[in-house]
């Protein structure tokens, strides 16, 4: 487990989400929830999940895949911080 800070993880999550949706990072930070972003539908969620798993080289356990984990940038960051912690 690396000593990467939450801020650094969040930055990588932000860039991956922005790339997957094709929207600027600013728009993601400004959105009330990720589900308000254009194109953030069920298929996009899975795309983002796969991208982040590749990015962090860790697989999210199925039971951790709940709607709340995809609500916000903070929740997604926490999901991958926790997943890496277990890896």
């Amino acid at each position, binding site marked *: 487990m690396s000593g990467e800070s939450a801020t650094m993880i969040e930055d990588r999550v932000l860039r991956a989400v922005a790339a997957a*949706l094709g929207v600027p990072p600013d728009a993601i930070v400004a959105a009330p929830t990720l589900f308000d972003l254009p194109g953030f539908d*069920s298929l996009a969620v899975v*795309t983002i999940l*796969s991208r982040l798993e590749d990015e962090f080289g860790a*697989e999210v356990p*199925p039971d951790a*895949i*709940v709607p709340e984990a*995809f609500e916000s940038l903070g929740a997604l960051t926490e999901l991958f911080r926790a997943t890496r912690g277990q890896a």
Partner: protein
Amino acid sequence: MIPTLLHDLLDHRGLADAQAPALTHGDRTWTYGELARWSAAIAGWLREQGVGRGDRVVILGHNNCEAVPLIFAASRLGAVFVPVSDQLPARQLEHIVTDSGARLVVATSAGASAAGRLADASVRDVAELPALPGPAWPGPATPGAAPCLSIDPACLIYTSGSTAMPKAVVSPHRQVLFAVRAISSQLGYRDDDVVLCCLPLSFDYGLYQVFLSCAAGARLVLGDDFDAGPALLRRLVHEDVSVLPLVPSLAVLLCRLAGRGGQLPSRLRMVTNTGADLSPAMCQQLRAAIGDLAVVPMFGLTECKRVSIGEPNLDLSRPGSVGRALPDTEVLVVGEDGKPAPPGTVGELLVRGPHVMAGYWNAPELTAARFRRDSLGQPVLHTGDLCRLDADGYLYFAGRGDDIYKQRGVRVSATEVEAAALEIPGVELAAALPPNGSFGSRLTVTGDLTPHRLLAELRARLGEQKLPDECRVMTALPLAINGKINRRALDEQWAQAAARSPGLVREGEPAGVGP
């Protein structure tokens, strides 16, 4: 007992298999006996709200559990239910409530806030519905006579046109029950099946899962958006799902999730597909991911519910076919002269049989154009869709009438371009748009391939003349509420992308990845 009205399906199960599980939503399951009782209690409540025979009741929600007993409750009164998604834009919702002349709107809280702005309709929150009565409940004071005839409408199903406001297909009890029997005879849902429906009940493909499950005595699991997303695999495993109705976007999702590893749904025995073709590679991927899986192609339109169903894994023997006409129904492909076209020739699809619905609501001209009569006065549905039949009567969809265009001197259909794209290894979903005033023909695909290879493979399959003017590879396509590709949103994406990077891809140049 032969069911003549929709709720007879439920009451038959309620008497025969009262203890069998009928419906699961979240972590709660109701038996057939409970569902029958609950719907009877709700029917009493609807009557108190002034709902009677022929009145329209809009069921506004998103696969909430109350929708199921509500549907049957409306049937018990001879009322006409109108299933509508609470995710619909307000303008369309307003149109549906006005156009249907709804007596009552029963809405989820999300729907109620949208419907609250509708001045004329009476809106009730689903939270006001009576709870499931206990087993000692004496039952409603039932009137002896049937509440309506089997030829009266059971529901109005609104379908959204790509440009126009949604229009409703009037679906009488008799046609709905015929379609349920005919589809059941082909798909063979069983009483030990668990059916996961994560398609909205406002979409007839989703709605009929309620009836097909009920007719078989199977357990229906109502899924939500998240079940139609990252949670799909877990839900399939957790609920021991054996039957899963798919549209192509859901099939892609299932393949991606199964590819991540982890536990696979071992009881899943059948997936059905409709709405658009599944690529042959996608069918193979599904079978490779889940052993002994039957992939069943189907074709339908709300105007007659279902046109054709194929044998399991028909893609292996007749790739691209959507099967044969339902039993006791007939499909005809006619040329421009109205005469049957020879096998292999594309023409307009006509449909005959007891499943042809009654017509469009409030639209006599459109009804007269599509729902025509033969010389004996029997209905013949003129679908406006282009199809061909092979010599054995297997049907192949060739495109909607309005997606044919002329390009470099040849006739091309968007469906033909999509079919060619779906043959290319790595392509998951494909959506082609005909030229419009501002753009030429455009193709967007999702999948794992470079834009350069997409273009090269397309050129090899379609030839230079039919090659789309612009192509893109995206990570996702915009989807409509029913999981089908949202072509209007896709059109807007192209316009926005062009505004950001003009001339993104032009014919002969390497295709770009965007945006």
